[in-house]
C-alpha cells in the first residue's frame, strides 16, 4: 500500500512539474535550470539521516553518509547562491543603476 501511495505522489509531482515549467521564456532558462538543480539537492535530507544514524550504524555507512552530506550541501548551497547571483543581474530598463 505504501508503494502505491508513493507512486501516486510521484505521478502527481511529475505532472505538476510539467505544468509549472512549460512556457517559461528562454531568458530565464539558465537560472531556472540551476535553481531546479539546487532543489534536486533535496537528497541532502536522506544524506543527513544516513550520516546521523549514530554508533549503531556500521562505519562504512556513516562514511558514505558524510560524503553524501558534503556533496549534497555543495549542491544546495552553491546552487541557490549561484542562481541568486545570476538573477541579481537580470534587470529591466528602469531598474538600472
Amino acid at each position, binding site marked *: 500500500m505504501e508503494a502505491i501511495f508513493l507512486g501516486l505522489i510521484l505521478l502527481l509531482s511529475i505532472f505538476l512539474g510539467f505544468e509549472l515549467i512549460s512556457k517559461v521564456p528562454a531568458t530565464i532558462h539558465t537560472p531556472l535550470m540551476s535553481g531546479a538543480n539546487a532543489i534536486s*539537492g533535496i537528497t541532502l535530507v536522506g*544524506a543527513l539521516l544516513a550520516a546521523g544514524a549514530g554508533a549503531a550504524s556500521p562505519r562504512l555507512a556513516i562514511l558514505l553518509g558524510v560524503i553524501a*552530506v558534503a556533496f549534497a550541501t555543495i549542491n544546495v548551497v552553491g546552487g541557490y547562491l549561484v542562481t541568486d547571483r545570476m538573477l541579481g543581474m537580470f534587470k529591466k*530598463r528602469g531598474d538600472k543603476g
Partner: protein
Amino acid sequence: MLDHLYINAAYIVAAAFFIFGLKLLGKPATARKGNLFSAVGMLIAIIATLLSNQILDWNWILLGVAIGIVIGVAASRLIAMTAMPEMVAVFNGLGGGASLLVGWVALFGTVNLFVAITVVLSILIGGMTFSGSAIAWGKLSETITSRALVFSGQRFVNSAILIALITCAVMFVLEPAHNSPYLYAVIGLACLLGIMAVIPIGGADMPVVISLLNSYSGLAACAAGFAINNVILIVAGSLVGAAGFILTNVMCKAMNRSLPNVLFSGFGAAKAATEVDGEVHPISAEDATLILEAASSVAFVPGYGMAVAQAQHVLCELGELLESNGTEVSYAIHPVAGRMPGHMNVLLAEANVSYDQLIEMDDINPRLDSIDVAVVIGANDVVNPASRTDENSPIYGMPIINVDQAKTVFVLKRTMASGFAGIDNPLFFGSNTRMLFGDAKTSISSMISEFKT
C-alpha cells in the same frame, strides 16, 4: 509516531515552498523571489529532518555540512559568469553522486524487494549523472576536447555495458546486500555508462546534455526517496526531473532533432553538405561603424564565440552608444546559442543589458526584413540559411535566426573556419553580408572608439 507526523507535516510545507518557488522562477520579474522561496523550502525540510529522533549523532553531519558550505559558498562567489555551464554541470554531478550514496546506505537497513529495486535505480541514475556530469564539466571547461568522440564499435561497446549492467542489477535484486559484488559492479558500470553516454556528444549539443543531466539528478533524488521511504525526496526530485525534461525537449526542438538523435549520433558525420562557392566581402571596423551610425535599427545575434571572446561587456557598450544615437537596438537569442540553455541571456544580463531587449528567435524572425543591420557575433550554425534551403545539410530543418533577410549583415568572425557542425555557411557569401574579421572583442572595441571620434 508523533515524530514521524511532524516531520511529514514540515515536508508538506517545504513542498509548497518548492512548488511556489518554481512557479515564480518561471518569470524574469519574480524569479529571484522564487529562488528564495525554494531555498526557504529547503531550509524547512533540512531543519525538520535534523530535529527528528532518527538523528542520533551530530558530529559527522557537522563535518559534512561544514565541508559542503565552505566549498559551495566559495564556488558560487568566485566563479566567472562565462564558466557557468561547467559550474552547473558540477552541481548536477554532486547531486547525483549524493543520491547514489544515499541509496547505497539504505542497504545497511532492512532490505526487501521494493527497497532493493529502488536502490538499484538510485545508484544507476545517480552514478550516470555523476560521471556524465564529470565528462560534461571536462568538455565545457575544455579540460578534455569538446568535439564529439566517436569510435567504431561504439554502439556495440555501449550495448555490452548496458546488458552487463542489467544482468548485474537483476542478480543484485535477487540477493541484495550492502557488500554484494553485484552492487559494486552496478556502481562501476553505471559510472562507465555515464561516461560513454556523454563522450560522443559535441560542444554545440551541450545544452541538451546539461538539461538532461539536470533532469537525471532530480530523478536520482526521487529514486533515493523511494529507497528510504521519504516523501519530500520523491516530490522535489520528480519536480526537478519533470522540469529538466521539459527544458531538454525545448532544446531538442530548437535543433529540430529528436532526443535519441542527439544522444546516439555524432553530429555532422552522416551527410556531406553542398559546398558553397562565392566571394566574401570583408569590411573594416571603420566602415562598419559608419553603416551602424546610419542605421535606424540594429539586431545583435550572439553565439558561443561571444562567450569565448568575453565580448559581452563591449557589446553592451556599443549597444548603448547606438541607442543614444537614436538607433533601435535589440539582441536576438537563439535557444541553443552557447553551451547551456539561456547561456547568452546570462552573459548579456551580466553586461547590464535589459532583459526586455533580449528577443527570442520566434519573435525576431518575422521582423528581421525590416532591420537595417544584423550583427552576428561568434554565431555560425544558428544563423546558417542552409538549414532552410539545402536538404543535404546536416542541420537541414533546424530553425535559425534569419539574419540573411536583414538589409545588411555583419559577421564578426576570427577566420573563415566553419562552425561546430563543420559545414559551410552560405550566409558568409551573401551579397548583403560583410565580414569583419578578427577577435570579436577587439573588433567591437575599435568600433566603439571609431564611434566616439
